[in-house]
């Protein structure tokens, strides 16, 4: 589907600088008509009122806006919402089941892995993905043997979390929290 199709299907969308598209966020489908400039981050926060995902630097440097798109973590600030037609997006609001936290959320609480909490949603979304990436065999800069199974280590976790900054410096406890989830899983 391209924008000209959108225009035909949605006659109100006559402004060439905006588009209509659909995406799924935390298992709920939404159809939005937005200015093409809207980032996925702004669409989540300002349109869908899912303000758990945070805007830090807005330039892909801090990781506060980390969300999962089709199972892969990305910086929501460096992605246009209109480019996510048909995508399946998970944010921090989708992590917990009713009545109990996601194990990574619980581990962050158990280990006091935050201070101000602003980077925490991004840290948790990223940490969940990191463990999946290691399990899937995705190599990192500190992986010694590219052709052997990857073992979870402090060095692997630190390297893979380098796209998430914490100005409070809760890194030591973030590491402990991620290790707790990794140990329970193994």
């Amino acid at each position, binding site marked *: 589907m391209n924008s000209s199709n959108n225009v035909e299907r949605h006659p109100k969308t006559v402004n060439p600088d905006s588009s209509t598209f659909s995406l799924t966020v935390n298992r709920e489908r939404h159809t939005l008509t937005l200015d093409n400039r809207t980032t996925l981050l702004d669409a989540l926060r300002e349109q869908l009122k899912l303000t758990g995902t945070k805007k830090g630097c807005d330039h*892909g440097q801090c990781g506060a806006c980390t969300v999962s798109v089709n199972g892969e973590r990305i910086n929501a600030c460096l992605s246009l919402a209109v480019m996510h037609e048909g995508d399946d997006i998970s944010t921090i609001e989708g992590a917990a089941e009713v009545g109990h936290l996601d194990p990574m959320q619980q581990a962050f609480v158990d280990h006091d892995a935050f201070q101000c909490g602003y980077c925490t949603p991004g840290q948790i979304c990223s940490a969940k993905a990191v463990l999946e990436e290691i399990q899937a065999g995705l190599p990192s800069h500190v992986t010694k043997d590219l052709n052997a199974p990857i073992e979870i280590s402090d060095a692997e976790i*630190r390297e893979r979390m380098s796209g998430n900054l914490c100005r409070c410096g809760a890194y030591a406890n973030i590491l402990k929290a991620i290790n707790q989830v990794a140990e329970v899983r193994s």
Partner: protein
Amino acid sequence: MKAFSYERVSDPAQAAARAAEVPVAKFIAGGTNLLDLMKHEIEIPKHLIDVGGTGLDEITPTDEGGLRIGALVSNAALSADTRVRKDYAVLSRALVSGASGQLRNKATTGGNLLQRTRCGYFYDTGMPCNKRSPGAGCAALSKGAATRQLGIIGTSDACIATHPSDMAVALCVLDAEVETVTSTGEIRRLTLDEFYQLPGDTPEVETALQAGEMITAVLLPPPVEGRHAYYKVRDRASYAFALVSVALIQAPDGTGRVALGGVAPKPWRRDDADAALPQGASAVMARLLDGARPTQENAYKLTLAERTLAALLAQE
């Protein structure tokens, strides 16, 4: 960010034709560099052509025994491909030393090549930059400028920015070629050396791509035997651009190939420097960095490059 119109295309040749036809149009794939620059209003496209649906997201064997990497293959997927890890380890190593996990999931092979050659003054719209505004002057070459990170060779009196890609340095040492489709549907193949242009008097021109021309794939020749290594030296342990990086492929007899990142507007490699590899790091760098024009602040890169290669050669 300035307003723009947007369309999706499903065919690379159609994308190229559209890009040549619509004024001030740009392709967008991962968007991690383009959107960053659009937010700064350094890039101001009037129309974006989303090429995400063009199906160029596969890695396939070539008849010659190499690999064809579709332009949309993500940096993460490419680094993790078992064939790349086994037969082109220098590429896998270079990819995982670049950016962050989040960015590598989004950044594409074609987009990585096309990220802008840049420096802090290119990003600072309050300062003159010949890349942003041809003829405006270069803040990096003014007295007292911060040039510690910037280029030492291949630079010009108009621009001393470096190309920040790690991936491209590995592709250079692998003799990879860039495959493109032009706006008239012609398929072209360019070596990395042909693809990247030196700044000269026109630093705003970074590649040999014609109007509308789109990268469709990167072609890897058959695997080169030997030790593959990528050593990146930077100011912090992760998620930082290289001060200097060295891509190395070395056969058991000591011969091989060397390319440098972090020192020039393009991956830096010379045949006579490759030929000097059996004589050691000093002999290689005497040739590879011959003609270097460092600033006072970045002359350390000459020493650092030699020591980085020496450190790699000293490993088993």
